[in-house]
């Protein structure tokens, strides 16, 4: 079974169509990057897949569950790390992780084990007692991803996970995201081409609400006739305008 299958997924905001009849398939355990310039429809697509907004038409199935008719089951299997850092600022690192365990209905002992495991995995142990609002951008982003993993999601959505981070913090997060590959299906949106190339099994390029193509980074470079991924992206997007 595919992890994600969208069928003519469409979203309209009054007169503007943000996503046109999207047909996209993501395999189990795959890391797929959604690429596109601003207004391409990436964030709207993620919002529809995560139940934050309802499609105007079409449907999407996450591990076979419809986002329209089985949203509770969908919510139970997904997790999101939003574009902006979404942490509770006055709670400590540990309390933020415990909060996510709590809202997913974990029992206290179960929550404690999960929090300890994630603190160790993400190197958060030493700052577990520090308020999240006092952490640097890189650490907040690291915590944000750890919070998304508390529920052991089958599908993880990472919206611009390294936006605004310095080179070292970005490299650290890349390592963490790589470590997730194969363990769960990951949908990543990013504006950094090198990030998409380094991390993705496959890439989907969107423009003005339409899906232009999907393929591995190597296939996309070959199709654009260049060995540079960022050049390939630019060529494909520009050609689509003509």
């Amino acid at each position, binding site marked *: 079974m595919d992890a994600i299958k969208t069928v003519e997924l469409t979203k309209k905001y009054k007169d503007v169509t943000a996503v046109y009849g999207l047909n996209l398939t993501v395999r189990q355990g795959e890391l797929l990057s959604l690429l596109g310039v601003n207004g391409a429809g990436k964030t709207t697509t993620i919002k529809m897949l*995560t139940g934050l907004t309802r499609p105007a038409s079409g449907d999407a199935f996450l591990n076979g569950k419809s986002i329209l008719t089985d949203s509770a089951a969908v919510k139970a299997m997904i997790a999101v790390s939003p574009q902006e850092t979404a942490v509770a600022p006055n709670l400590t690192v540990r309390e933020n992780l415990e909060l996510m365990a*709590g809202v997913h209905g974990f029992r206290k002992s179960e929550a404690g084990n999960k929090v300890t495991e994630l603190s160790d995995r993400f190197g958060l142990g030493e700052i577990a007692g520090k308020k999240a609002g006092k952490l640097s951008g890189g650490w907040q982003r690291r915590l944000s991803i750890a919070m998304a993993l508390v529920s052991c999601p089958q599908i993880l959505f990472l919206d611009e996970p390294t936006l605004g981070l310095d080179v070292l913090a970005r490299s650290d997060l890349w390592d963490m995201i790589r470590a997730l590959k194969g363990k769960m299906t990951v949908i990543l949106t990013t504006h950094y081409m090198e990030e998409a190339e380094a991390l993705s099994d496959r890439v989907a390029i969107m423009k003005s609400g339409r899906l232009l193509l999907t393929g591995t980074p190597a296939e996309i470079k070959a199709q654009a006739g260049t060995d540079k991924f960022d050049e390939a992206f630019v060529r494909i997007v520009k050609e689509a305008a003509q």
Partner: protein
Amino acid sequence: MKVFAFSKRNDLEILRDPLNLFFGVGFPIVLLLLLTVIQRNVPVALFEIEHLAPGIVVFGLSFMTLFSATLIAKDRGSSFLQRLYTTPLTAGDFILGYLLPILPICIAQSVICFAMAVLLGLPVTIHILTSVLFTIPVSLLFVSLGLLCGSIFTDKQVGGICGALLTNLTAWLSGIWFDLRLVGGAFQKIANLLPFVHAVEMERAALRGDYAGVFPHIWWVMGYAAAVTAIAVFVFLRQMKRQ
């Protein structure tokens, strides 16, 4: 329970903000102290503690609207609430999670105010306890106002509307500092149509042990609390759908 995890977070966010502690506890206590000192130095009954303490309790509760609205508006403004919308929390969990945890804070604030009033000369009677119980509908009114304002305004707008406008309305139109009959006219009529003066009068009657005197003020307070809660829930759910 999922809702308790969310409630606990909301409690911690509010209690760990030093400004909230200052306005929620420090400010009412300072007012009690200051006005009691003034009373001791004037020959007329202006701020007698039996009359003043219930008013200060209600005035202190008006800050709960600010705390509650700021928390919700900040959550809406950041991606934090979006993250939680993708979890199994239901709409009911969100509403209860924002309303319920602030009620114990309201009761604690009332207890602290009455304790301070006792230190300043308020006789210790069982009526203090019943007065604290009567703060529950008043608390619900102010906390629901917070849910409503937090669902409509940004955190900056909330600062102006709840921090300045609402607290001033509560202060001036509640008869805490002066008898509204001294002003009379339209001012008194408007004040009587709003819940603040009724909340204060209800508290004063309860503190006197005059339970008949609690009526009809309690109907005004409960009516407003029910109406504001219903509107707040409706507006919050609409915002939730939009987001």
